[in-house]
């Protein structure tokens, strides 16, 4: 689920980050403020508005329901929740990474006949991958730990929408400390492996 959420954040986050770092357009400041909103707002508030949007009565939820796709209180909602909660991290990190790439390198590529699309893949991303990776790992961890938004839009249905933190919360509530402990250790293990692996990778030059 966190993997799916991270994929979604990359898919939406990278183009937004490129736009924010490379283009000046009206409403850019507004967009930049909007992007960090999920980081600052209380998760339950976000979850509440998200539910209004994707719930069966909400504009998006209704449209999807008409197409036969159920969103709220399914695993898909948990993915959306995790993505919303973590996308700001990807966007901010990638934007900073893209902005740190020497503009003249991209200009050089342009005079050498490359399109903007090609420049992104052959110059900008290869030079900013470290920042993008760092943002992605943070986003993944954030997605894995997402609690408030998920609870609001996906509920906590065991085996269907119950994410790791929700499961731990449930076990603690039920006083099943051994299981809670095991789950918590799994969470720690995943994060440690990830962070360690990434720091190894980042030592590579390009």
């Amino acid at each position: 689920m966190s993997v799916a959420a991270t994929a979604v954040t990359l898919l939406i986050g990278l183009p937004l980050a490129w736009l924010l770092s490379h283009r000046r357009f009206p409403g850019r400041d507004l967009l930049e403020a909007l992007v960090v909103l999920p980081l600052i707002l209380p998760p339950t508030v976000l979850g509440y508005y998200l539910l209004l949007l994707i719930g069966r009565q909400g504009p998006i939820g209704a449209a999807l329901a008409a197409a036969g796709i159920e969103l709220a209180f399914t695993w898909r909602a948990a993915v959306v929740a995790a993505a919303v909660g973590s996308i700001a991290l990807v966007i901010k990190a990638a934007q900073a990474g893209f902005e740190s790439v020497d503009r003249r390198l991209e200009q050089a590529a342009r005079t050498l006949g490359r399109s903007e699309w090609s420049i992104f893949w052959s110059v900008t991303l290869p030079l900013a991958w470290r920042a993008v990776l760092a943002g992605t790992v943070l986003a993944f961890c954030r997605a894995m730990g997402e609690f408030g938004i998920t609870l609001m839009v996906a509920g906590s249905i065991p085996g269907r929408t119950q994410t790791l933190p929700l499961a731990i919360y449930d076990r603690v509530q039920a006083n099943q400390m051994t299981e809670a402990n095991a789950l918590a250790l799994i969470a720690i293990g995943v994060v440690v492996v990830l962070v360690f692996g990434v720091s190894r990778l980042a030592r590579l030059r390009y």
Partner: protein
Amino acid sequence: MLALSIEKRLPGFTLAVRWETKERVAALFGPSGAGKTLTLQCLAGLLRPDRGRIVLDGRVLFDSEAGIDVPSRARRLGYVFQGYALFPHLTVGENLGFGLRGRPRAERARRVAEVVERLELGGLDRRYPRELSGGQQQRVALGRALAIDPDLVLLDEPLSALDAPLRAQLRGELGQTLREWGKATVLVTHDFAEAYRLGDRIVVYEAGRVIQSAPRSELLWQPASETVARIMGIRNILRGTVIKATPDRIQLRWRGLTLEAVNSPTRAYLPPPEAPIAFFIRPEYVRLIRKDRGAPDPDHHMNLMSGRVVAEADFGTTVALMIRLDEPGSPAQGEYDLEVEVPRLVYEILEIDRDRRWQLSIHRGSIQVLPA
């Protein structure tokens, strides 16, 4: 043939230039911040002028009125950036072939091999830019631009990233490479020696405008104004008053002396009597009159004056003498009136270190007037 006329307004700076060149290498010369690089960026399509027109060999690259703005990637210009902007994550070979994407593999390999050979980059193609010396980086940047077979090469301060001795050597190499490839080139530099050495035409920039555009020898001997002369670093720029001007001679008064100068043959300049006039005298063209050869002869020695050496600067092979004239009044250039440059050999033969009083003469052809 390149013709350019552009206007670009930026916060705190306006670029408004118009020049054209039929010469192979045009050097844009002027102080930093005069708009030279900006012009290059407009040429390359990296910056969009507010108004204007750019035509290269009959191909319109930009025309604000016709709404033409050929994108950078389609202009076929080889841009060598200041500091080179090599792709740090790619090898030399990948850098050289970067602009050849979309061409058949065999052609790509052949072109890269040709560039490697002609620019003497053999054995370096698997290295990364950070592993190269400054001179090698410069050749890779040039090679990357030449590999796409551009219609025009743009060089932004190609030598400024290098140390002085290497710079002098590479200046010659660069000139030779440009000649060998025979590519039309626009070069940006703030170093007059570089502009003169590499450029067939020199376009002088100041504060976002072009103040002179001329073949290099014309510029050297006939700067269009005092400003141009100052930017070129010409010494002994002086100010006097016109006595009489005719199409081939100008008589002027300076420091109580009457000087005679030749009027410019191409741009006869006829200021009225008593008008202020600027002129310059190249330090190496002032003659010291030998005392062992009798009195000066008016047929051979014109524009006579006398004075004493008040300071000198030793440049090794030449020595600059600062001379204060005997005329009353304050000297023209602070402590002295004229700077005179003599070869070291002359300095030793005439024992100038001991003998400080000299008579000087300046041929009328060596006094250049500067139109206001």
